[in-house]
């Protein structure tokens, strides 16, 4: 049973009317398969949100640590004037996992705002991709987007990829995208170990620091769980 793959194909749709606000948080820890990539869940999920009403808000927060393959792009269609879309994501892959995740922010209405913070951590032989779209349509005057994608690589056999699409058809809009790729530096690890932390604890601390901007968006009890999950997912990835 564990050598086989299972498919999880859920659909989630959110609609927010005037002044309504929805926060949808996910911590995903499906079986990722074994170290050789045998077995595991295919996690292909459709999630979309419509901010129909004025000043409505949809906020997606996700922590993806499990599944053999994850494909997931929660979207926000920002139709209502002054509506807000948010996407906060942490994706951790280890061994042979693949995570391809991101969001679509479609700005239709005036003064709509979106924020995207995506953190990916790759270890082992895994691949992690941020793939996302920010589109500003001609009527979305005053639209604002800010996107920050950061990748952390642990080991030299993994991959980290960033594929943003930015389409802007309105001069009175402002779109900003930033992305960085880095690894945990030897200096950081040594500094923590000199202060008495074990190597695994040091990695856990640094990774949690790297993900802080996303983890703080989770409800408290989820956040504690997510922090532990991150550390467990990366067990054995260093040294």
């Amino acid at each position, binding site marked *: 049973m564990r050598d086989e793959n299972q498919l999880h194909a859920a659909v989630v749709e959110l609609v927010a009317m005037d002044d309504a606000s929805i926060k949808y948080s996910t911590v995903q820890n499906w079986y990722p398969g074994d170290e050789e990539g045998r077995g595991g869940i295919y996690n292909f999920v459709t999630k979309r949100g419509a901010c129909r009403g004025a000043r409505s808000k949809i906020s997606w927060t996700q922590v993806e640590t499990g599944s053999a393959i994850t494909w997931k792009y929660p979207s926000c269609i920002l139709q209502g004037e002054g509506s807000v879309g948010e996407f906060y994501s942490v994706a951790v892959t280890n061994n042979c996992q693949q995570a391809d995740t991101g969001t679509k922010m479609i700005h239709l209405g005036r003064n709509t705002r979106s924020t995207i913070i995506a953190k990916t951590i790759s270890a082992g032989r895994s691949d992690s991709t941020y793939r996302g779209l920010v589109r500003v349509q001609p009527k979305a005057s005053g639209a604002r987007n800010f996107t920050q994608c950061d990748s952390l690589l642990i080991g030299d056999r993994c991959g980290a990829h960033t594929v943003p699409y930015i389409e802007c058809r309105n*001069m009175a809009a402002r*779109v900003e995208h930033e992305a960085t790729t*880095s690894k945990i530096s030897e200096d950081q690890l040594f500094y923590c170990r000199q202060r008495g932390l074990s190597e695994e604890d040091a990695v856990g601390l640094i990774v949690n620091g790297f993900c802080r901007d996303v983890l703080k968006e989770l409800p408290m009890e989820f956040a504690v769980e997510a922090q532990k999950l991150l550390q467990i997912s990366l067990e054995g990835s260093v040294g």
Partner: protein
Amino acid sequence: MISPDRNGPLNLFTSRLEGITGAERQQAVAALQRAGLPTRRVEAWKYTALRALGQSSLSAPAALYDAKAARAVLDDVLSAQDSLASLPRLVFVNGRHAPELSVLPKAVTVTFFADTPRFGTAAAPDRDPLVALNTALAEDGAQIQVEAGVDGGALVLLSIGLGVQGSAFSFHPRHAVILASDARLELICVQAGQGAYFHNPVTDISVGSGAALEHVTLQLEGAEAVGLGTVYADVASEGVYDSFALGVDGLLLRHEVHARLGASRAAVHVNGVQRLGGSQVGDMTSVITHAAPDCISRQTVRNVLDGHARGVFQGKVLVEQIAQKTDGYQMNQALLLSPDAEIDAKPELEIYADDVRCSHGATVGALDDEQLFYLRSRGVPEAQARQILIEAFLDETLGLISHAGAQALCRAMLTRKGAAGESA
């Protein structure tokens, strides 16, 4: 059977692709028949359609051209920046070398594709359909070679396109630039013209170890013309390929660079500026491959878009597993001057090495109202204030052009475009 839906506008070339001889050319034709010319369903052409090529079959250009018109284009370019007049130049008209307009260089060796056709090694007709089209139809081109340790100085490569009323044609020059180790060259490619035509050059560049090539390309094509250029650059250890492209005139422009850092401590710069208006579409696409450790890549592209213009930026930085200690930076910024202008950007990082520093950024926005107001409150008329802020936005990027004459020519062409835009 070639269908426009599956093969794109390949049917415009049907008759010219028949009966082609030579192994390379036949392979290119076979690749074209398999893949066709790109439609927007092809990821690399997602934002740029070839509809601008029109409906009529594109023939080869006529053997004779209007000598007076060609001379006028040449004079126009030289008058914009007269320091260029003293430089050696290779002039092509509608894709063929025009010896009567050229001044051959002394320090570098130049041969012509028409005499000794060589396709080079870097180009990938299998992967890039427009390169396959060039390979199938190439007639002429400059092959520029600089010997080891030689400073070749500056050289102008001027491609003039002269549209002819009632005639639809295309030309596909095949250029090559080879710098042996520790050689240097500043190559200023000016693509200028008038009317309608399709210019599809492919340039195959090899930068030897310790060599340095500065390559400035100005796209000043005819108002109804389509200019789609592809550059392949292979850079050896400690070599530098420093490229700058300026997109200004033409109906549809695309400048595509594939740069490969093949040995350690090599560097590439793939910079550019697009200043478009009307219903122009300009596309700057690049793939920078880090295939060796300790290499540096830098990319800054700025777009100023007015009218109904659409700017496209696609920049991919690929870091292979072997390419540890890679230092990569990429920035794309756009200024939208009109409610109908559009920018589509896809900055892309694909990274398989862990000890790397790679970052990219993209911004889109309008002119800053506060800055505009500040200038106007000091008595600067609005049009001039806008022009000052646009120039300021582009200034730093233009400063990346090392060759003073080339930089001055780019600035002159931008000023001209700005003046035309404001009066329109």
